[in-house]
């Protein structure tokens, strides 16, 4: 135990070329979260069931009354075909936000988990990347399961639907990064009401349940700046095999959100934890 020379195995990565990856130890936090989740498996199922419930109640139920609607590139689709991709996008958002706000707030303020981690060679960016990476793993499991359900229900129109999985991952990354950045500014549980204040309208007005064209002009403009709108448009175009150039914008918006969120989260984690 005492030979000091044996320590070299712990030689830490100094500044990696991609500062966004921290000291490259993010995966160890993901493993830690896996160990913890293994002993609390029930929480896992909720995230999967939520979009399925929405799909059946709104898509299938309401779809029986509504009939067909206009989808991407002006094609006509059934209502349930229209709503299902939006549920996939929205559940990617919700999962990432829950993980990055409630769970991280708890660890940050009460758990002292991060203090313990920063006493090792890990750096704040490892924490940001590790938490978001874990939330991505969970999200990918949910998205895949949901896409399988959609495929069984005949709601998928082509192979491009497979690309909806990375698209859902990107949505999770964007909202996870921004959610985590926001969480570092929160001081009490009451601040989470503010999160809901953003999330609920976004969920309702991002061309989730109706095509954008049914809104009045000003509301269309508002919807277009909603990140979830870009996520929904992206996933819908892919699932319905109707790609278009506007998807480049959708991806760019989500990538910009991810990078901005990560950078703010890194800086704020350092300010909060390294006092």
């Amino acid at each position, binding site marked *: *135990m*005492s*030979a*000091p020379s*044996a*320590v070299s*195995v*712990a*030689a*830490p*990565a*100094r500044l990696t070329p991609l500062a966004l990856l921290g*000291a490259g*130890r993010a995966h*160890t*936090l993901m*493993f*830690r979260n896996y*160990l*913890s989740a293994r*002993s*609390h498996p029930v929480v896992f199922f909720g995230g999967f069931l939520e979009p399925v419930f929405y799909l059946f109640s709104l898509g299938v139920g309401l779809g029986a009354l509504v009939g067909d609607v206009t989808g991407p590139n002006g094609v006509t689709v059934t209502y349930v075909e229209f709503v299902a991709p939006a549920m996939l996008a929205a559940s990617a958002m919700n999962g990432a936000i829950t993980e990055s706000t409630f769970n991280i707030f708890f660890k940050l303020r009460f*758990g*002292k*988990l991060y*203090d*313990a*981690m*920063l*006493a*090792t*060679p*890990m*750096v704040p960016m490892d924490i940001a990347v590790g938490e978001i990476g874990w939330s991505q793993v969970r999200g990918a499991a949910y998205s895949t399961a949901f896409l399988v359900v959609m495929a069984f229900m005949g709601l998928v129109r082509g192979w491009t639907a497979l690309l909806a999985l990375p698209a859902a991952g990107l949505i999770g990354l964007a909202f996870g990064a921004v959610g985590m950045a926001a969480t570092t500014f929160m001081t009490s549980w009451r601040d989470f009401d503010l999160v809901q204040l953003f999330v609920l309208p976004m969920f309702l007005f991002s061309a989730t349940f109706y095509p954008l064209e049914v809104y009045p002009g000003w509301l269309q403009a508002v919807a277009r700046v909603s990140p979830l709108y870009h996520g929904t448009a992206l996933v819908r175009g892919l699932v319905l095999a109707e790609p278009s150039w506007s998807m480049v914008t959708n991806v760019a918006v989500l990538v910009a959100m991810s990078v901005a969120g990560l950078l703010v989260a890194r800086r704020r984690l350092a300010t909060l*934890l*390294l*006092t």
Partner: protein
Amino acid sequence: MSTTSATDAATADPAVPMAAVVARGLTKHFGDLVAVDGIDIDVAAGETFAFLGANGAGKTSAMRMIATVSPVTAGDLRVLGMDPTADGPAIRSRLGVVPQEDNLDLELTVRENLLVYGLYHGLPRPLIRARIDELLAFAQLTDKADNEVESLSGGMKRRLTIARALVNEPDLVLLDEPTTGLDPQARHVLWDRLHELRSRGVTLLLTTHYMDEAEQLADRLVIMDHGRIIAEGSPRELIERHVTREVLEVRFGSGRQPAATDALLALGLPEVDAVEGLAERAIVHTRDAQATLDALDRHDLRPRGHLTRRATLEDVFLRLTGRQLVD
């Protein structure tokens, strides 16, 4: 124990053990508050060094800077020969940290806590697994290996925190109040473990409010007060330098105590170096306790009770600050 200057440490011959910690004018501000006020310390490799001080003296603030998790406001600091600002991760990979408040992972078991900590340090899994059994035995937690951390007693949690700090076989272990809040038996078990580490040549840097702990463990210590170092030396040296070998405690009962302490002082007894008046007793630094007691008797200052004992670091602290270390 000789002190090494910062330049000596930087140019030291590699064969000579390098100073574990060198600080010059180390300062920490929190807004307007000065938590650490320009301290100089030298901790040699292999030494056990203690910060002794009352609540709020700045011990934790100093330790956190050394642990490279708190930016230095001013001054120079080298830890294991490296610069905390530039080489934080490299320093931390050779440190073991036992924080003032346990921050074990409550969602994991005892064994998993050690495993993930080794992974945070970037150690390969087979190596960690081999070390875990050794560490569990060291911390006397082998039969608790698969329990949730939440179910451990305070003393067990503390031992696990220490075991966790050793998973990377550190050269320097920082222990912030390792035994505060533990019962006497648990404290002795911990002291045992720390003595064992010492004998393996690990450098230990600890903080404490307990003078018996400092006396037991430390080769050398500094007394901190309001962010400054007010005395430095080995426990024996400090006692010899600042107080008489023996002290006499006299109690006159709470009503009479202040007046009696004043009267005692007014006597100006030749063998008495100093008198510290406390609410319920006076501590008399005297070179001849019996002569002092006889004198009190002659002047009709008869204490309700008295006690002659060896001087402790507590007396040094009281002498230097006029306050008690622990209430």
